[in-house]
């Protein structure tokens, strides 16, 4: 789960990482009020779960509350890389002497948290890694041993920070970032830029923060930060119904059981010349109600012109899936034709149930490839 800049900063602040004073605003009026409350110059920042806000005009300096309101009016509703701006973070403007970069990521390959730090901040880190790799200091942390202060020193001195007060402040922020990362079950905590003000104060000016979905159960406060309105409406509906669903761009609705098989099914539709409308995983134990729920999400997508059911029964029983399909056809209006392929546990019975009922527009195919081709044909 990705967090907005302001949410990440709230978590930073909770662990003692210095951030600028700010307030959330959802209307131009709220932006004005926030600017008044904060006082002085403020920055009006679009809150979207994507990068490139600055270039898209989503970040503006305002010297007066009036100006803040005007900027807010302009930024709210902006479409930034497919994300519509609905929230603004109004923040006390900072004087910037230097821009550094600090992040802590979950390194799947090394199976350890990985710190990255450079004094070349304010730009995309990939750019620094390419053009000036020596300026980027990497450091892994042993997850059992945990963080030690020397690791902060290695990053700070390794990156060539020479000012003693900066060294001290950054070392402290590094320790707190580790605490934030572990305590919040984060997959990514990025501060870019980590600024130094002209009077030598170090502060996090931005945040990029991703939390492990599997750990949200133990962070109800973070789980509540999810902005359901920002998600694709179908994906939001799917989440509500506990259906694993990812919206894609095509016309063939896809439903498989198990993540791997479902991905493979989407691939096979593509290789057969079709365009999948979605990824949808019925899960390991899919019962009839699960089938109904999944179909109700898939068919809500107006682009869907055929539906491909690809089931390999293991724990999932194919007869149960067949019953679910028939039940769904009774409960939901489904106009798109459905192609079904059933194999594995109780597949014969499942096929028999479908063939016996023989609802209109339902096609049973013997193999995954045959079924994919048929579904693509039907969507054409």
């Amino acid at each position, binding site marked *: 789960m990705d967090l907005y800049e302001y949410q990440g900063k709230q978590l930073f602040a909770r662990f003692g990482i210095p951030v600028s004073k700010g307030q959330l605003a959802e209307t131009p009026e709220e932006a004005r009020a926030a600017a008044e409350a904060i006082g002085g110059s403020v920055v009006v920042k679009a809150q979207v779960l994507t990068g490139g806000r600055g270039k898209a005009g989503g970040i503006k300096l305002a010297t007066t509350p009036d100006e803040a309101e005007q900027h807010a009016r302009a930024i709210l509703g902006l479409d930034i890389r497919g994300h519509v701006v609905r929230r603004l973070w109004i923040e006390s403007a900072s004087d910037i002497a230097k821009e550094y970069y600090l992040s802590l990521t979950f390194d*799947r390959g090394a199976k350890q948290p990985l710190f990255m730090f450079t004094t070349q901040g304010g730009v995309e880190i990939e750019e620094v890694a390419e053009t000036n790799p020596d300026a980027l200091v990497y450091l892994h942390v042993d997850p059992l041993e945990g963080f030690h202060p020397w690791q902060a020193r290695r990053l700070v001195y390794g990156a060539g920070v020479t000012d003693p007060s900066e060294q001290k402040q950054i070392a402290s922020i590094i320790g707190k970032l580790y605490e934030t990362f572990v305590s919040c079950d984060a997959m990514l905590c990025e501060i870019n830029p980590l600024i130094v003000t002209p009077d030598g104060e170090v502060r996090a000016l931005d945040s990029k923060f991703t939390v492990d979905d*599997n750990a949200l159960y133990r962070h109800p406060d973070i789980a509540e930060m999810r902005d359901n309105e920002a998600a694709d409406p179908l994906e939001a509906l799917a989440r509500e119904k506990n259906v694993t669903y*990812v919206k894609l761009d095509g016309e063939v609705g896809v439903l498989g059981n198990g993540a791997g098989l479902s991905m493979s099914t989407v691939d096979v539709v593509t290789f057969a010349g079709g365009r*999948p409308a979605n990824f949808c995983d019925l899960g390991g134990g899919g019962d009839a109600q699960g089938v109904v729920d999944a179909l109700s999400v898939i068919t809500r997508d107006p682009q869907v012109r055929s539906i491909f059911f690809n089931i*390999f029964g*293991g724990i999932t029983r194919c007869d149960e899936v067949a019953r679910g399909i028939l039940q769904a056809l009774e409960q939901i209006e489904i106009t798109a034709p459905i192609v079904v392929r059933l194999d594995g546990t109780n597949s014969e019975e499942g096929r028999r149930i479908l063939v016996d009922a023989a609802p209109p527009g339902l096609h049973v195919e013997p193999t*995954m490839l045959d079924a994919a081709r048929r579904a693509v044909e039907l969507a054409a």
Partner: protein
Amino acid sequence: MAIIVDNDTRLVVQGLTGSEGRFHGLRNRAYGTKVVAGVTPGKGGQDVEGVPVFDTVAEAAAREGANTAMVFVPAPFAADAIYEAVDAGIVTVICITEGIPAHEMLRIHTYIRSKGVTMLGPNCPGALSPGKANVGIIPAEIFSEGSIGLVSRSGTLTYQIGHELTQLGLGNSTIVGIGGDPVVGSSFIDVLGKFRDDPQTEYVVMVGEIGGDEEEKAAVFIEAELGKPAVAYIAGFTAPPGKTMGHAGAIISGSSGTAQAKKDALEARGIQVGTTPTETAQLVADLAGAP
């Protein structure tokens, strides 16, 4: 021979008294696996159709000689169950439970390595050595005994490919699901290393998917050290970046972890990659000279 589970496996099921633990534990026993004990704190002294239940894994190990644990306890308690198994001297842990926080798994991964423990999962279907033992939720009836080692991050996709192999008259030494989470106990390389050392295994199929770089690392290992013919399949060519595709670990982060990158890495090392499960099975059949 075969790997990870076999006739020497003496299984303790952590969470045997839960509905899933009971269903699959008994199913594993029906297959012939030696299911010697269950563990459910507070239910020590009971039994599940003749399988004795203990309060702690230490007791199950001491009294019934359990050497392998299958973890079926809910995610919030699963990490503790894994530590308990390891500290009780269990040498193979197979965690079916999904949803263990990734940070927990970082610590567990570091810990089990230091103890020399083999772990599959979390979020895995388990391991099946046809004709010997089945630990987990793999439907054994699809598979037959043979010389092909199969290792996969996915359950149903594995069944699909296994099914196609069976239809081509090919059998398996062991089918291993390593699990679909970002951090799992065993990497592809860990399992490939075991297949290398297993005389029963003559060919290897690796079933990967988007996310991480384990397939890329495995490609290097296969070329340099496996010493047996191998074929691969990768799922997720059409997955969009930044979206979790069912498995917590199946996510393209930025530009890393794409199916194409994995396919390229494998092919660059001379390893054939099937585009569909059917084609993949056929590639194995061609190698193995099956009918």
